[in-house]
């Protein structure tokens, strides 16, 4: 809740204050700052060193920190995660990149059976300060296997934290927090937001983070647009269409609050439920296929916790239960403003 003002300010104030910064730049800066602050932080993966990553998110890190702290590995994702686990056991804080969402699947056993379980299995004797960065979801016209929304696989796996920023400021903040965390974090980066820009000051974010001036974003959803009539709960790539839908709804006289989940695990029941109890109506928006998804979870817990405040069932706007479609079909798949507005319309306003 603390970031309402900030986020609104950042999003709106493009005409004054700091220069616009891309989401990608915020991520790169977060890694560089973390590497400067702690020389145990190492970055590796496929094409992250010389090339700076296929999305250039690790650009410049090898140059500044050398080939020992930012390096390319052989092409093997299970190898990357398994080796990172060992390095985390032995005093380092690896930040690893999976090149695309679906290309993290070869590492699924290492992630689900070891990364998620090592701390618990050893009664806390082994901690794994390890960040697995996963560029995810669609909206970029990518071919098959390059646009999966895989967050549910991780969110369903006990022992993993799952973060997913939707704003430039959160990209910086959440990645710093993920790297600083002693728990393994799967860090889901909405690819389509990499080139989005906001006027935020990375210097300010850095000094705030270093000073511990801002409360942790982990476990705190952000009310990114206040409203009174209904709540949209969204995360990652679904936040921009959610905000746009709220804006459009406002023109029709409906005041819609938008909550950005930010960290799926741990989940912020407090902020989400406070909003829904206030508005009495809720729509959950997520890009992933809906069946047995994070959106299902949010829907289920909101109705469990806010049942008597609800004027209508909690509704979902998600991807269809189909493999992510080819580029030319993408626009029919992605939850867009109209679909969200239609769903808002159906929340039994006549009652």
């Amino acid at each position, binding site marked *: 809740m603390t970031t309402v003002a900030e986020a609104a300010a950042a999003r709106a104030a493009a005409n004054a204050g700091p220069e616009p910064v891309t989401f990608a730049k915020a991520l790169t800066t977060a890694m560089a700052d973390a590497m400067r602050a702690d020389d145990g932080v190492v970055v590796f993966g496929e094409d992250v060193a010389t090339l700076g990553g*296929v999305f250039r998110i690790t650009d410049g890190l090898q140059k500044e920190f050398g080939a020992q702290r930012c390096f390319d590995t052989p092409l093997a994702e299970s190898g990357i995660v398994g080796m990172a686990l060992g390095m985390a056991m032995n005093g380092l804080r690896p930040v690893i990149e999976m090149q695309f969402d679906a290309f993290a699947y070869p590492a699924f056993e290492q992630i689900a059976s070891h990364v998620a379980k090592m701390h618990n299995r050893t009664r806390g004797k082994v901690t794994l300060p390890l960040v697995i960065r996963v560029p995810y979801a669609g909206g970029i016209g990518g071919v098959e296997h390059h646009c999966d929304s895989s967050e549910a696989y991780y969110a369903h796996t006990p022992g993993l934290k799952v973060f997913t920023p939707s704003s430039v400021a959160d990209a910086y903040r959440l990645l710093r927090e993920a790297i600083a965390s002693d728990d393994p974090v799967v860090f889901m980066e909405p690819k389509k937001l990499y080139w989005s820009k906001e006027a935020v000051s990375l210097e300010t974010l850095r000094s705030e983070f270093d000073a511990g001036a801002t409360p942790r974003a982990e476990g705190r959803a952000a009310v990114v647009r206040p409203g009174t009539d209904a709540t949209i709960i969204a995360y990652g790539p679904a936040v921009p269409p959610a905000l746009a839908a709220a804006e459009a709804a406002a023109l029709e006289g409906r005041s819609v609050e938008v909550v950005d989940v930010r960290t799926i695990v741990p989940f912020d029941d407090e902020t989400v439920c406070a909003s829904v109890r206030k508005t009495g109506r809720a729509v959950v928006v997520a890009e992933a296929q809906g069946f047995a998804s994070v959106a299902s979870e949010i829907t289920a817990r909101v109705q469990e916790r806010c049942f008597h405040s609800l004027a209508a069932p909690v509704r979902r706007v998600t991807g*269809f239960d189909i493999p992510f479609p080819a580029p030319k079909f993408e626009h029919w798949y992605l939850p867009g403003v109209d679909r969200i507005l239609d769903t808002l319309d159906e929340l039994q306003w006549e009652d």
Partner: protein
Amino acid sequence: MTISVSSPGGGETSLAEAVKNFGISIEDYMLPVHGQIQILSEDGTMLPEDRRGSSPGHQYPVPPDEELLAAYRRLVIGRRVNDQNSALVRQGRLAVYPSSHGQEACQVASALCLRDGDWMFPTYRDAVAVMTRGVDPVDVMTIFRGDWHGGYDPHAHQVGIQSTPLTTQLLHGVGVAHAAKLRGEDTVVLAMCGDGATSEGDFHEALNFAAVFQLPVVFFVQNNQYAISVPLAHQTAAPSLAHKAVGYGMAGERVDGNDIVALLAVLDRAVTLARAGSGPLLVEANTYRMQAHTNADDATRYRNQAEVEAWAAKDPLNRMRHYLRAAGQLTDDVEASFARDAEEVAQHLREGLSGEPEIDPQDLFRYVFTEPTPQLREQAAFLADEIARSADTAPADLAKEH
């Protein structure tokens, strides 16, 4: 279906047999030649037999000149396809194209070494191989135009989908070969991947399964020296990728991947051995990805022009052209006719990819299962309704969508 052949696990026998056949040690059978097989020199002259890099147990018949001429025609078409597709990307007709420019000899040889009934399992970069095998070039481009995940029927030409998840397709090839073997069919499978892909766990599992079940699979690695930006030295510390065969009790071969003569000789022999029951083989072709990984990549960030130029001098087309001209096979007329054939394919591509493809949003739900589930039917109706409603309020030409 009748299953007829002998049980899996015959590893030792087959190695022992190979050794008997060639009169060499097990290690000599498995280990690739120390250099690589090369038949045509870089300036296009045929090397004397004792300078082709072969050794006992590794001998290769040279294909007749007519076959070489036909292969050259394919090279010319392949090069034209690569360059046409790259142009189509620049014109916005294709979203992306991973070009095999420079690797055309590998592409052509992988198709020509197979006969009807054999299977090929290609990667995203093997479009030219797939076309050479007979698939309509426009259909091959569907994935890169973005109107579907794939545009051809794998069964029609016995060509697997062009796989994106690296190395996964090798196992599919192993399965196809296994099913064929269980039915007593003499299908050979050519399973293709790149140098980077050899680092994935599935590479290991595929080679091992093929070796343990003694399946007729030729694993063909196009070592183009890079996996996107990562050079071979960061993929392996082995003397060559072909050395990996040893760990599976398999024979490994290295071949000059810009020498179509050597490629045909080595792959033909491998396919023949596999068909005769030798078990799987691993062939590594040394070649070079002359262009960036895809149009989205910037190769200047990780390699220098001198390296690229050194490889340009080994161009597979030039070499074959010089040889065939010297051999009197390639006259000006023939060359002109090859160019025309290539241009015809290019034109077919341009035309086939010129308009916007007709697409039907209901296709989203049609093929997820053999029959849509109730949930998919609901979702299909939801989308149809949404489109219908938006058509009511939108320009008329959108109305055709439902």
